[in-house]
């Protein structure tokens, strides 16, 4: 993957760039908004990571200008404050995702991965499959090893989100946003509770587990082996 990071804080940018390089990606760093926009428009990147507050051109205007230049490259925002309006404004300006500072690198990496997947994913699918776990999106039914599994509405959505991102890590916050539309930090273990319920239904009776916990990061659903 070829990434562009537009970030003026050197410590953050070197931390992020190093993280991606260790994962085998190329991460270019630009420190100010105008140069960043120039690079974003003319370079060919898979994902662009933009800090909200930048010298010469702020992140919001940068993304607006980028979208005005007909670029469809996925953009993820880094915002310093978790303002509700900031998030909405950021997404309205054309960004695809946002992440609040301070953030864990694993969270950023998971979101960047999800963005590239989202952009590459086929537009319409009616069935999802991971190993012997099948989901029919039209009939709203789930089977594993040919046996029907009854799921509640939210459990179904949780499993759908996990299956669509099969093989990649989804963080706790990503699940909260995508499954429950919760954009704040709950004080109870909502995600853990629902994951364990889901596990009891899709994994426990079948021996081979598909749903795995990624320590201090999130969850992933993947075929064994």
């Amino acid at each position, binding site marked *: 993957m070829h990434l562009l990071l537009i970030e003026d804080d050197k410590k953050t940018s070197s931390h992020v760039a190093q993280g991606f390089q260790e994962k085998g990606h190329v991460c270019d760093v630009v420190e100010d908004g105008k140069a960043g926009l120039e690079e974003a428009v003319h370079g060919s990147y898979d994902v662009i990571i933009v800090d909200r507050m930048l010298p010469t051109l702020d992140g919001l205007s940068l993304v607006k200008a980028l979208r005005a230049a007909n670029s469809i490259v996925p953009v993820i925002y880094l915002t310093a*404050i*978790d*303002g*509700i*309006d900031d998030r*909405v404004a950021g997404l309205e300006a054309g960004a695809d995702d946002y992440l*609040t500072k*301070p953030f864990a690198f694993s969270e950023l990496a998971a979101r960047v991965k999800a963005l590239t997947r989202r952009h590459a994913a086929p537009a319409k699918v009616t069935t999802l499959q991971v190993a012997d776990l099948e989901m029919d999106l039209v009939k709203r039914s789930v089977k594993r090893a040919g046996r029907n599994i009854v799921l*509640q*509405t*939210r459990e179904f959505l949780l499993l759908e989100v996990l299956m669509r991102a099969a093989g990649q890590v989804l963080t706790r916050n990503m699940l909260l946003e995508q499954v*429950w*539309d*919760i*954009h*704040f*930090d*709950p*004080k*109870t*273990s*909502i995600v853990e*509770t*629902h994951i*364990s*319920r889901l596990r009891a239904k899709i994994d426990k009776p079948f021996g081979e587990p598909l749903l795995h916990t990624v320590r201090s990061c999130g969850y992933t659903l993947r075929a064994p082996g």
Partner: protein
Amino acid sequence: MRPARLLHSTAIRMALTYAVLSTVSVFLAGATASQLLKWQLFNHRDHDIHNVYTALENSYGHGGATNLVNTLHAYIQETLGHNWLFIAIGPGGQVLGGNVHALSLAITPGWSSVDGAQLGLTGGRRYRVYSGIVRNKVRLVVGMKFQQLGYLGRLVQTSFEWAFVVAVLLAVVGGSLIAHRMQRRFDAVRETMDRVSRGELAARVPLSGRNDDIEQLSGDLNSALDRLAASVETMQQVSADIAHDLKTPLSRLKMTIAEALDKQERSQPVAAELESAAAEVDQVNRTFNALLRIAQIEAGARKTAFKPVDISALLTMMDEVYREVARDAGQSFSVALPATAKADIMGDRELLMQMLSNLIENSIRYCPAGSSIHCSATAHDDTVRVTVADNGPGIPENEHERVLRRFYRLEKSRTSGGTGLGLSLVKAVADLHDAELRLDSAHPGLMVSAIFARRRRPVAT
């Protein structure tokens, strides 16, 4: 006031404009009226001249030219020769009679204006004359001196002159009175804004009680100042709160790091210290976010994005999210939806969700296993009441007011790791929605209700 400032005053400018305009209009009215009068008088004079001419012409009919000349002399006698001129000239060019003796050939038949000199008269006056040929024999000229407007004209002129003077005086005096009064009110506004900009946020524009636009402007300014003062107060409160509640975890963090450095020097593992430092930082960050979020909600900007929110759907969502979480904590969780059709309110779905989450999570955290948590919404004619109740330890009645304040925690829950901001966020969201927030004892337990205004659905057509 200095002259420079005088000219920059809207009130003075308006007064001056008013004065100039009213002066010009009085002047124009006067000019028009005197012109009309003149025109009327001139018409009248022409009419008079023609009448005399016709009378003389008619007098010819009976006794020939002699009769005409006699009548003519009678007219001269009557007018004593003042202002009027008459002349009758025979076919041979001889003067038959009249009070002038020379007649310039320049006088054409019909109406004309001639100089007295052309008629052999001194004084340089001009005359209005009518000239014609009576019975193809006698040339008859009747004329009248051009005069200044008569007595009537002078009267009109004089009265308009006076009116002009009075109008100018009124405009100047009235205009400056109005200007002065307006200036005083503007000065009051300016003075208030001056005081505000010097930091006196409590200053307000004095209201006069008149129901006019300046009063409305002052009212608007005052409510803007109210909002400003409130948000500044919030800011100050937030800073004080941050200082109050972040210093403790920050100093703990510093101690943990010092400990880790110590251990590092002695080549001992520091993983535990680093983990506890990371947890401390997370806590600081959570507190920060909660504070900023409350401040943002209190600033009220979200109100513009209010949309209809279906309370039943929201509670169903809460049921899906928390039923299992509560069960894991050994508690039971139930939701009762309003019996009637959808109960909608106008609001911010995300914030309402966070408000309910905070209330439910508080119950889950502070109630022992075996407790039950019950959420309900009831729709009344004008209101929708949303309630979260539990049968846990509750909050003593005398603390009900205080728990809504930032960072207020019951002593016994000090150590439970919350930010102490959960209920203040609930309060902030309720306030944003103009909802009444009530804490009641559920005997045992706590019952928190928010009473929202019910949204009127448009009548289906």
